């Protein structure tokens, strides 16, 4: 019956996110007493495919087709549905990222399989099959029973630790036949050389308290020293101080890093909604009544312009730079 994990690759490479999904899928398979199959689409070399075995994949399928070069939600859905049916998969695990959100709901209709989306833990029970997910933009969590024979779960990024669980993995390549895609890609603009906000384990984020877009230097330096990404609050992206891709909050990016450092951000409900999944929140704000301090574990009531350079120096010291 197997658990099927859709592991997206980026130009033939897997990211931590793929290993999280396989780790999660193989734990669900253990709960059900079955095996884990990972499926990926595109040109991926054998070494890379074999790495999935380290995190618990018993079998890896690599689908290859010229028509699947770019994401076309219909074709990708059809491909994963076909694999799920061939494998007799009872649970399908997909990332809750942009591509996952475009495939999983379609797959739910195609297979008439209940969808538990934005899940952040292992199922609470397998009978009835109950998942735990974020609702009301992080203001509450829900226990959701997936009532169908086949179930689909989309897993929130960074919510499940990678677990090594080495298996003797069997890798198969499949020449996959499909129709021509209806989604035609005319242009691609890749963000290069920068850690993606959704992938980052440490995020340093600035709000209106930064006072001017010219003051971002020390914030970016701190993020770089910590190996993290930069983010911002909504007013900052609305003002055009930072690109809207950096906006974290209810209508921006929902992120769940290990450490979120909020600088000059008061912590409006909408902002908290986007970052409440963080393991630790640090707040730096000159207003001691700012709501961000209610959700932060560590805080400094002070001026960002004075505090940030000192934090940069302290990190340089411990990193020996």
């Amino acid at each position, binding site marked *: 019956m197997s658990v099927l994990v859709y592991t997206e690759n980026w130009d033939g490479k897997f990211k931590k996110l793929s290993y999280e999904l396989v780790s999660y899928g193989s734990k669900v398979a253990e709960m059900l007493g079955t095996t884990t199959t990972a499926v990926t689409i595109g040109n991926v070399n054998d070494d890379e495919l074999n790495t999935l075995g380290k995190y618990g994949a018993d079998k890896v399928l690599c689908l290859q087709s010229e028509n699947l070069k770019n994401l076309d*939600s*219909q074709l990708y859905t059809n491909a994963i549905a076909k694999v799920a049916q061939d494998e007799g998969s009872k649970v399908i695990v997909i990332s809750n990222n942009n591509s996952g959100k475009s495939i999983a709901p379609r797959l739910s209709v195609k297979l008439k399989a209940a969808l538990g*989306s934005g899940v952040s833990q292992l199922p609470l029970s397998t009978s009835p099959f109950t998942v735990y997910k974020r*609702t009301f*933009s992080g203001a509450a969590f829900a226990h959701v029973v997936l009532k169908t024979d086949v179930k689909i779960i989309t897993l929130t990024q960074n919510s499940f630790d990678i677990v090594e669980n080495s298996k003797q993995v069997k890798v198969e390549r499949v020449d996959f036949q499909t129709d021509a895609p209806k989604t035609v890609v005319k242009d*691609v*603009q890749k963000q290069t050389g920068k850690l993606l906000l959704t992938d980052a384990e*440490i995020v340093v984020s600035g709000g209106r308290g930064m006072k001017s877009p010219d003051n971002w230097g020390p914030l970016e330096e701190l993020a770089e020293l910590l190996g993290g990404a930069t983010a911002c609050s909504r007013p900052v992206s609305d003002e055009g101080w930072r690109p809207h891709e950096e906006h974290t909050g209810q*209508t921006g990016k929902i992120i769940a890093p290990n450490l979120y450092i909020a600088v000059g951000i008061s912590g409006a409900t909408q902002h908290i909604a986007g970052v409440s999944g963080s393991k630790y929140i640090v707040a730096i704000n000159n207003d001691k009544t700012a709501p961000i301090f209610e959700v*932060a574990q560590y805080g400094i009531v002070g001026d960002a312009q004075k505090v940030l350079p000192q934090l940069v120096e302290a990190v340089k010291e411990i990193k020996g730079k």
Partner: protein
Amino acid sequence: MKILVCISHVPDTTTKVKFVDGDTKLDTNGIQWVINPWDELSLTRALELKDNASTGVSSVTVAHVGPATTEPTIRKALAIGADNAIRVNADPADAYFVAAQLAEVVKQEQFDIIMCGIESSDYNGSAVGSMLAEFLDIPSVSAVSGLNIENNEAIITREIDGGKETVTVPTPFVAIVQKGIAKEPRIAAMRGIMMARSKPIKVIEPVAIDPLTEYVKFELPKPRAACKFVDPENPKELITLLQNETKLI
């Protein structure tokens, strides 16, 4: 071209949610209801497209699945500028149920572009738009941050992990919209509010669909430990704490 914008009726974000009946149901007492923020952005973009004569957009319709009590939310969409509205008279049981009902709406009246918000701020499913497209067997494009119509063709910008792509798809299609598509939602002017009163809301009865999921229990997040404050004169202490206590740096 005809555009359909699917709207959902959600508690205002600042509402403190509470639950009743042994934490199985949302306590609706005192909730201020609004159009789901991403749906409002979709509506804004749809109206901007209609305002530009070169796009050939002739009408913007809103569709909603909900009981009669949700009509003020639909009236708000009409006041902002939607031309007409359709309400499927049913409690929205789950995303699958809602998408199936919306698919019936689309089958009854043809639309070229169907817009849905990327998620709703209540159940955060990110599911209805893509499910609707699959029910209709038409293309869908997710994480759309730009939508234009040039020479009768939709030019779409979508966010991918690590960048952006410009894509085209044939109509009809579903655009699943995120931030960036439009800047600020429009505010209903008095004239719009007056006009909205006379605009029709077509009410249709639901088709029989069994939901695939059931929300059996809600819980509030566990309170975080109280904030540990560091002396602003000695910010380095923060780094020491993060190093020793969180082991993250």
